[in-house]
């Protein structure tokens, strides 16, 4: 059996205002797998993602990362888990907070103990991957939305996590950046969970797809099969974009 990287079991969660977002989610992802998480607006995708490193907690069910259980009280384990799981948030404004882009990208690796030349190299590398090397000295909140999203991706890449979780990474990216992001992700050999409404992107990048709807998993299988099931798609507000021909795309890796 393949090694398990992420394991979510029976996860249910309600927000403090009483609104329940997850109703028992089960999901297992093996090491090195690339999985797309699809589903309509408000399905609970972001809520699920925020459980993966203990940012949200307090519901029922368990989340395990490489065998370690995510438990809010256990600070040391939590630190280790956060080192392993890198999350790119859906809203880049939630991610960026330092005075300059460079500081922001350096924040994570510096917390991991990197210093000096090694840190600088890590930062430039991450910024170059997303094509944002030339804004390094500007304040992140003075960038355009798409630029901020790219920097947000860089902040997480710079930490070289074992598990990469991206929440809507392609939104607000210009088409070339979208393709470049695909190429970057495609070249990384880590476990990836990609939340997206961009079904062609999912098909291109991820061999496997999971559909979350109404706070529970309603489908899990090969992306081509999931996207080929018209009834399933229709039932969960998913549909292939107008003018998109799925047969023209070679799925990421078989």
């Amino acid at each position, binding site marked *: 059996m393949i090694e398990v990287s992420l394991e979510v079991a029976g996860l249910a969660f*309600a927000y403090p*205002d009483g609104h*329940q977002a997850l*109703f028992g989610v089960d999901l297992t992802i093996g090491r090195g797998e690339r999985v797309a998480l699809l589903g309509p607006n408000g399905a609970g995708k972001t809520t699920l993602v925020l459980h993966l490193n203990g940012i949200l907690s307090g519901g*029922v069910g368990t989340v395990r990362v490489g065998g370690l259980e995510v438990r*809010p*009280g256990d600070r040391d384990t939590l630190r280790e888990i956060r080192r392993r799981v890198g999350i790119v948030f859906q809203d880049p404004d939630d991610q960026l907070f330092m005075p300059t882009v460079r500081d922001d990208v350096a924040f994570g690796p510096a917390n991991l103990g990197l210093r000096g030349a090694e840190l600088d190299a890590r930062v430039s590398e991450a910024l170059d991957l997303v094509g944002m090397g030339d804004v390094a000295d500007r304040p992140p909140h003075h960038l355009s939305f798409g630029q901020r999203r790219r920097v947000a991706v860089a902040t997480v890449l710079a930490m070289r996590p074992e598990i990469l979780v991206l929440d809507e990474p392609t939104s607000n990216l210009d088409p070339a950046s979208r393709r470049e992001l695909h190429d970057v992700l495609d070249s990384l050999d880590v476990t990836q969970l990609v939340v997206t409404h961009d079904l062609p992107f999912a098909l291109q990048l991820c061999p496997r797809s999971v559909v979350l709807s109404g706070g*529970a998993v309603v489908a899990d299988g090969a992306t081509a099969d999931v996207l080929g099931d018209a009834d399933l798609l229709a039932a969960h507000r998913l549909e292939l974009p107008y003018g998109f021909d799925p047969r023209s795309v070679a799925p990421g890796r078989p």
Partner: protein
Amino acid sequence: MHVPDGFLNAPTSVATGAVAAAGVALALRKAQDELDERTAPLAGLTAAFVFAVQMLNFPVGVGTSGHLMGGALAAVLVGPWTAVLCLSVVLLVQGLLFADGGLTALGTNISLIGITTVVVGWVVTRAVLAVLPKRPASVVPASAIGALVSVPVAALVFVLLFAIGGEASLSLGALTASMLGWHTLIGIGEAVITGLTVSAVVAVRPDLVYAARGLRAPLQLRRPDGSLVPAPEPTPAAAAAPRASTRPLLVGGGLVALALAGIVSFFASSNPDGLEYVAEGEGFLATARDHAFGDFALADYGEVGGIPVGVAGILGVAVVVVAGVLLFRLVGRRPAADREEAAVR
């Protein structure tokens, strides 16, 4: 009512500084129970909010500036200990980065704005809550009343400090009347803002209101056929750390009060010998006794507004002691009761 440098004499500044230091030190220890990793930024936000609220600043005829204070609001949102920390930070930052409130008067300002309003606001809020129905919404009127009361009380404490260490021969009666008048008005504004804010927070994030903690609907699970079933109870999180007994609190409070009484009466006595001795020893004092540290002696004003300094000093100490004891007892006990309530629900 940010007190500037040189407004109160040095002994009073030192004494209030001691009170402030003791209060903050205690709050630092006790605040551990109130905040965790997730709510830590709430203290920062509350501080920022109080900071913004305190920008609503207007001159009060008889003295320093009058403005909203935010002590009760902070106490209700983050708990009294953390609130003391929040307000102290606000005052520190205002002093250092905005030149608002003197640095040597920092202790005075923390005692007045940071400690008095928080303690009064919290105690009154709890008292009102005790007679209201046990619903989160009750926190709204309770906190508004707490806020309303806290401001004039702080004004009274200010008058008291002024009576002890003010550098002027004012009629205390007039001062009291006008400070109270103004600050009752300010108190109404404070009540409105506090009530509005707390009600907005209670409505959507009751978990963020310290005074209204502990309310959760049961979770459900969606089965494959789409039907919903109640989720099993979550395994209870590690039980809250056992509460420290209140005895250290009382002892600490007593010590603070004693130290205070010592310092204040030492300086407030109109006998300057001790100081003169020190000053001479340092080679500071060449001529008359109201030299370098002459202010310390209160030499020129044996009376403040008709009240002998000695009497005023004793009164002040007594009030501080009583307030301190009340603070330690009430604040020390309430959260424990809270937690039990939460556990029962």
